[in-house]
């Protein structure tokens, strides 16, 4: 059974269609990336999942139930715009949110203390938030999302505004939660994080789903590219869309950037080279980045709004 399922969900704000006929599902234990530029509908979709706003049409199922606060004990949420009660201590803040998620006060304090200790804030249990550095406050905020050991962790642009140390800490926590069996859904427009962490991806543009699948499937959306060192022009080979001379190598050999026709596997071209005694000194498949895939499918993150 899916942990999260959206079926033909749309959300309209006056004249703006923020989410347009969106359907997808997230299986248990998956790290699911929700990718899109600013205004693509990521935050709106996540708010609908959390029942902070309601969809105009369509159906949402979270942990087998309709969205609602009844799910709060099993959900952890880190919003894009973050803040804390400035006059509350770090431990009280985490305990408060733990209690709002249905935890007993003792459990919430114990788990909060353990998280703060793990995040290197053992000395700051009693510090009020306004006395903490920004990086420390970010850790406290993350702890409020994790305190109830959620089955479903929803992170909205979690890396935005984090310093490199906290970015590393967050990646580690995502991996830890995933290893413990939790399902993680996070939205981002920073492709490197998604590339490193996600099992499955959903690309969103102007509120519509543009792609859903694994990273490999995403890369498969773009024609393969090769880096070749040969004496002859590789464009004569079957399945090659284009070959660009990128300069001389040693002893009369030349470097070529090769783009294959869509659907042509690099292995097929290599086999052809061998059969035709097409001389090669180098034959290397170029790894396609998620950024390239995103730009190909949706447009640049900035234009994908």
């Amino acid at each position: 059974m899916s942990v999260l399922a959206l079926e033909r969900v749309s959300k309209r704000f006056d004249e703006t269609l923020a989410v347009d006929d969106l359907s997808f599902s997230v299986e248990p234990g998956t790290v699911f990336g929700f990718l899109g530029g600013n205004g693509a509908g990521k935050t709106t979709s996540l708010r609908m999942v959390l029942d902070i706003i309601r969809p105009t049409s369509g159906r949402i199922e979270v942990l087998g139930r309709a969205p609602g606060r009844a799910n709060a004990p099993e959900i952890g949420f880190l919003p894009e715009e973050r803040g804390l009660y400035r006059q509350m201590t770090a431990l009280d803040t985490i305990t408060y949110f733990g209690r709002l998620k249905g935890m007993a006060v003792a459990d919430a304090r114990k788990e909060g203390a353990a998280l703060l200790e793990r995040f290197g804030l053992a000395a700051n249990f009693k510090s009020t938030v306004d006395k903490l550095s920004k990086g420390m406050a970010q850790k406290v905020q993350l702890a409020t999302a994790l305190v109830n050991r959620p089955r479903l962790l929803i992170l909205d642009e979690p890396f935005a505004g984090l310093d490199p140390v906290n970015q590393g800490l967050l990646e580690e926590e995502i991996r830890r939660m995933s290893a413990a069996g939790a399902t993680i859904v996070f939205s981002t427009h920073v492709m490197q994080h998604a590339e490193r962490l996600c099992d499955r991806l959903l690309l969103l543009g102007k509120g519509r789903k543009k792609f859903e699948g694994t990273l490999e499937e995403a890369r498969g959306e773009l024609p393969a590219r090769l880096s070749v060192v040969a004496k002859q022009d590789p464009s004569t080979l079957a399945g090659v869309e284009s070959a660009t001379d990128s300069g001389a190598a040693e002893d009369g050999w030349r470097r070529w950037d090769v783009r294959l026709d869509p659907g042509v596997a690099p292995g097929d071209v290599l086999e052809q080279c061998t059969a035709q005694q097409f001389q090669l000194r180098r034959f290397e498949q170029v790894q396609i980045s998620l950024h390239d895939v995103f730009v190909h499918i949706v447009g640049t993150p900035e234009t994908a709004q």
Partner: protein
Amino acid sequence: MKNILLVAAREFRQIAGMRSFWLTLLIIPVSIVIGALVPQLVQNDDAARVMVIDRTGGAEARAIAQRFELERDRDLLNDLSRYVQRHHLEKADMQAPWAQHDRWYSDAEVARFVADGGVEAAKAKIARVKPDATPEFEASKPDYEMVPVPASLASAADASLDEALKPVLKPTAKDVKPVDYVILVPADFGASPLVRLWANRQPSPRFMSNVQEVLTRDLRARYLTAQGLSPDAARTAATIAPALAISTPPPGGGAREAMLVRSILPIAAAYLLMMSLMLSGSWMLQGTVEERSNKLLETVLACISPEELMYGKLLGTAGVGLFMIAVWIGCGIFAAYATHGAIADMIRPALDPLTSPGAIVALLYFFVVGYVTIAVLFLAIGAMSESMRDAQGYLMPVILVIILPITILMQAVLGGDGGGVLVEVLTWVPIWTPFAVLARLGLGIPAWEVIATGVILAAFTAAELVLLGRLFRASLLAQGQKPNMREMLSRMRAVQN
């Protein structure tokens, strides 16, 4: 419900953690104590020293001295009556004037009191029935002390008195007491009404009225004698005055003073409601604005519904308001005990409205519902504002609309005529209903009016909670410019966002 209580507890703790909360909480008892102590500290307990230079032979000086003596005895009689009433000692002598309370003592009654032996005789009678624990009666100090005229002044010419009195009124030597008032009754007093008065400060109205009355009587007697009346008949004619038999009707009988005393508690409740609302309301507003500006609403709303958040905030703030009132009342009770019941005796008539269970229910109902009615306005303002500066824009008109009519209302009720049309109108407008009904409880408000306004207030508050609840919910995550009236109405119509 659990989430509402959690939010309420957090709100309460947050406000109670503010320094301004404790300052405000203490400022009222402290200012009352200062208010009570300062007059005592600055009050001059010494009797005012009075010198009468009587060029007519001494009769006028004696008359003035006798008058001050009479007023002094009247004061003693009044003090004694209050002491007897406070300690329930009437059985010492049921017929004595000091065993009859809340009345004006005529000159004849004061004379009888003096003839019966005055304070000392009364104390002797009281001592026979007074329990040991009851404190002794202590007579207050007299207001005036007559000072003999020194020979140098008695023989000085009237024209030279201005200069001669300077060292008497304002002596330069530290160990010489100044004379506060010097009265010159010239030799031709009677033929001429002119009397001169020197004072080293603004003469008190009571002093002036006593002197004026004595001299007026004498002036009239002299005039009547000059007209051929015998001196005895003239004196009698000058002192003829109606003998007013004054008694205070029982509470509820329409006497203004009694009604005012009965109004103290309800009016105080209305004032306390207003003050605690304005104070805790502004803290709640700050809290809501902080949640918006610190961007923590989304985290909160992922755990609890906007309604739970709103009710939790209302409950927490109401808790703060009621806590403040409880502390203030506690201070009052402490003061009543600390003063050995003197304050309690004074406010006992004010507690009369609480003798009826209906009045207690009405007092509590209008207080609590009134609190919610106004507090929810603050909450909606907080939800619509990005910053306190934004909030001020909405807050000022709302506060003015609430407070101005209430100020007028209080004046009208204290004016004692029931307030007239204005108070009647304010009673029926829900945002002012709690204040108007509370203020009128002591004066007597028809039961049907209390019930009808109570029902209207409940309906208004329910509608307000629904509409402002929608506005609150829709405004929580809204961004951008402050909403205008059209946008606000549209948010109130939105059932779900």
